[in-house]
């Protein structure tokens, strides 16, 4: 506990996101706006999901794991729905920007918007999941004193990092699939999200939850890389600085 845990976990959870934002988003005003807009859409989805869960809890009169499972699944589906809404809006904006610019190309491409909106979903989702935990970690206390896992903070941080990256990748894949009307891609993104969320239900059995999630992150990353146009040859070319 204390400052070390706080800063360490914050860096683990948001290090990649912060680097991505600082290096790729912060300099361009349009991307910052897309970032904030994406966060807003995610918040809307969370609001809807919470409303659903709240109503179901009130109606059933009790709060149990099944309702929570349902709530989490609804949250995932609503997030993907809002991602789709975000896609529609950004596509329209892209067309508008293209019409307005002098050479018929908008100053920001749909793929860039896909990446930034995915990143924004990831950041806001990660922040909402972990910021209260981080705030608690800076204060006094003993982790897991009632028999829970003592690794709560670090696993939360790692899960958050994975989630941020996953959302970024899903954003890229999702937008590409929507653009090309590829239902398979859509299905896999939604499926992957449901799988990730489902795996977290296995906490605190971290070998079964954290491990596969990190592997899933890697695979989704490679897939997104391929979708965005990357390939082995590109990587080689980049590394050899040609």
């Amino acid at each position: 506990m204390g400052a070390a845990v706080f800063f360490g976990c914050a860096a683990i959870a948001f290090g990649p996101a912060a680097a991505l934002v600082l290096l790729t988003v912060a300099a361009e005003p349009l991307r910052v706006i897309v970032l904030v807009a994406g966060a807003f859409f995610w918040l809307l989805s969370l609001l809807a999901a919470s409303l659903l869960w709240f109503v179901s809890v009130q109606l059933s009169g009790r709060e149990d794991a099944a309702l929570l499972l349902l709530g989490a699944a609804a949250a995932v589906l609503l997030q993907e729905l809002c991602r789709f809404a975000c896609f529609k809006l950004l596509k329209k904006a892209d067309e508008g920007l293209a019409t307005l610019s002098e050479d018929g190309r908008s100053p920001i491409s749909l793929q860039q918007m896909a990446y930034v909106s995915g990143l924004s979903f990831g950041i806001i989702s990660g922040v909402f999941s972990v910021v209260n935990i981080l705030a608690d970690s800076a204060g006094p206390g003993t982790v897991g004193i009632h028999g829970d896992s003592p690794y709560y903070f670090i696993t939360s941080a790692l899960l958050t990092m994975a989630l941020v990256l996953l959302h970024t990748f899903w954003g890229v894949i999702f937008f590409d699939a929507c653009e090309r009307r590829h239902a398979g891609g859509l299905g896999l993104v939604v499926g992957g999200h449901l799988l990730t969320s489902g795996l977290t239900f296995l906490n605190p059995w971290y070998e079964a939850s954290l491990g596969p999630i990190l592997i899933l992150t890697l695979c989704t990353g490679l897939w997104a890389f391929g979708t965005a146009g990357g390939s082995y040859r590109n990587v080689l070319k980049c590394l050899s600085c040609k």
Partner: protein
Amino acid sequence: MITFMNNSDSEEEPCNERTSLMSAESPPVPSYQDGLQASEAGEAQAHRKRRAGSSRGPNNLAGGEMSGSRVPVRESALENEEEELTLKYGAKHVIMLFVPVTLCMIVVVATIKSVRFYTEKNGQLIYTPFSEDTPSVGQRLLNSVLNTIIMISVIIVMTVFLVLLYKYRCYKFIHGWLILSSLMLLFLFTYIYLGEVLKTYNVAMDYPTLFIVIWNFGAVGMICIHWKGPLQLQQAYLIMISALMALVFIKYLPEWSAWVILGAISIYDLMAVLCPKGPLRMLVETAQERNEPIFPALIYSSAMMWTVGMAKPDTARGPSQQTWDAAEDGREHLRSPSHAESQMSERRSPVPTRPVTSLEELEEEERGVKLGLGDFIFYSVLVGKAAATASGDWNTTLACFVAILIGLCLTLLLLAVFKKALPALPISITFGLIFYFSTDNLVRPFMDTLASHQLYI
């Protein structure tokens, strides 16, 4: 359409918020959905630019002059580029306002979370005389509504008074009032703030040091705000006084009254800025008729008007050379004494700034957006109250923060479409309030339950 922030004469006097957005010569950015009308917009824009010189009033006298003299030069070269540039400017303006609003909110939230003084209940302002300590919900609601009515009436009276003073050219009185208010903010409130921060961190400071620190801070602040100063320092001071004022509100407004007041203020803002007989609208129109800028102490300006002076004659010839000459002419017209920004050009002229190599850069620096300080204050009050009272802690604060930024973005989009002074409070505050109540009551239990099982969605 600007309501004025009455930087209070007394600690308890409320602020008349200045609550609108005015585009300082903001180029007409067609709405993103308006693809089809883009070409017409481009045409209209060129025409508007031509007319802009004479009719731009309060925002910047300088800008108006500038554009007037430069337009004939520019037309031929730039019409095609303007559309793309205006779009980039549109986004740039948004960021130019995001940053100060975010900074103000960060200051307020950081203070609220660390200094306990601002969350302690230590009495109320005389403008909210009804206490909320009653056990019954109905009585409490009634009291908060009454408090709101009193507060809003006071604000309306102050605003009308200010508009009348302005209309009858009692400039000295207004300036004296503003100077007194900013004196109070910069010295007294800063002293209290510094005292509380030092108490929180248990840092000892002797009175001579304190005196020197406060004196320097306040004196430089007065100079920057009311006279000349570097733009960024002026912006920093405006952000700081907005934050201080917001903290005062957060401390002294009772819970429910604060929320009702926020709602009522946005409605008032909407009406005052958009109704034909609204005081703010009359103020802006009067200022425009007289071709004067609105008092610089009440508005945050995001960009300088004309950082043109230093085009190296040997770089971009032609247009920029001509614009440089035009800039010289333009600057001679800047004689409005109360305009802090105008003074800055004279300050800047001996300093060789970066060589302006292209006309686009000139335009970029010239255009800015102005946001009233009252908007800063009320945004920060909303986020600060969320940080102070929400049991959902950081989630609620962040949700309100995002909501306010999105509201600001939408307002700027509307500003680009309508091209006249608009109220900046309604959309942001509405989103902020919706998100506050829904996050606090719906999202918080959900996220807490998920977090206790370490579930991620």
